[in-house]
């Protein structure tokens, strides 16, 4: 009879099949991309592009301790790039794959100001806030994704929270 403890240990070391990884991570990456880029038209494309890059190198990336951290880093970088691009490129993107219709519903009216303010935060604060509040990551997990110390993460979180509570003038939660 096999030793269950040993079997479990061996199983943990096996690379995760990409499809399972994709199904778990993709919706979360869409949310992260949407929060950072602000484009409901592009969020799915950004998440797909990040997953595609992971897939192309899955032999290597699946061997990492935390392939999800790699995926988040790529998603964030792609989303930041889009955020920086010109309005004309965004408009072209809207026209291209989606026929001008976003896949995800737009932010409800009461949330628009909030997410605009999140995107107006300094880049690192924005990334930390989105990973914590949208992707539900701990300070340690965020530190792994962004390659910064856990104390830096906590500091960015604190400053981001304070900035948002001061800037967003919403009295009642809808």
């Amino acid at each position, binding site marked *: 009879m096999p030793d269950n403890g040993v079997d479990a240990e061996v199983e943990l070391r096996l690379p995760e099949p990409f499809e399972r990884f994709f199904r778990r991570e993709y919706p979360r990456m*869409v949310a992260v991309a949407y929060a950072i880029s602000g484009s409901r038209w592009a969020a799915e494309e950004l998440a*797909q592009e990040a997953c595609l890059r992971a897939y192309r190198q899955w032999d290597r990336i699946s061997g990492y301790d935390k392939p999800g951290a790699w995926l988040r880093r790529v998603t964030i970088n792609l989303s*930041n790039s889009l955020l920086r691009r010109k309005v004309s490129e965004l408009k072209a993107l809207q026209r291209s794959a989606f026929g001008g219709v976003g896949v995800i519903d737009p932010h409800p009216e009461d949330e628009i100001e909030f997410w605009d303010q999140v995107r107006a935060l300094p880049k690192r604060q924005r990334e930390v806030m989105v990973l914590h509040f949208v992707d539900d990551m701990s300070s340690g997990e965020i530190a792994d994704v962004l390659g910064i110390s856990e104390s830096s993460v906590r500091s960015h979180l604190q400053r981001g929270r304070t900035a948002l509570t001061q800037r967003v003038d919403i009295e009642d939660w809808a």
Partner: protein
Amino acid sequence: MRHEDIERYGVKLAERVASQVDTDRRLESMMRAHRRGRVTLALATAAAALAIISWLDGLLEAEQPPVATQPTITAPQESGLSPLPVELYVVLRGGITVGDDGSCGGADSLEDIEEGWELTISEEVGRELRELMSIPLPAGEAVSSDDPQWAFIPFGDQQQACIFRLSDPGFAIRDYDRLVLDPGVLPESGVFTSIAGQRVFVVLDTSDEP
């Protein structure tokens, strides 16, 4: 607003997205994109590097008239090192957000960069550059705006590329053949070099992936 409201906004967005995305359709779409995209990606990377080099050189020529009196670069002497008035440009393709090959930390906007910046060249890129030139590049260590030898060049579109210049008339080129840009022998490391006049461009293609 209260701190707990921030959390509720995040949860609400995550739930809304999770309920609306079609993961199965996306998986199929991604596989199709994978089958189509292999060759295009490699070509696009090389083409982008060439375009940036051409664009940057054009801008420099436009802003600074060519120095016609300077000698053209000739092959190195027997010593293997030939001091020349060379300027090295490090171009971070993709702007200020870069990955492991180089990082521009502590900057959240262009204004921040102009006030102060920090650039780190990885060991791998530094080794490659040292093989090409006698540049005292502090690989693995950060250089910053505090170092008067390095300058951030605030022209062009910083969203496409972030450019730093290290100039020192004492640099020497070790390997002329490798410095001349030849699309057929581009290294795979993401470092592209070109020489135009006395300028050497190094493009680090590290904008999106860690």
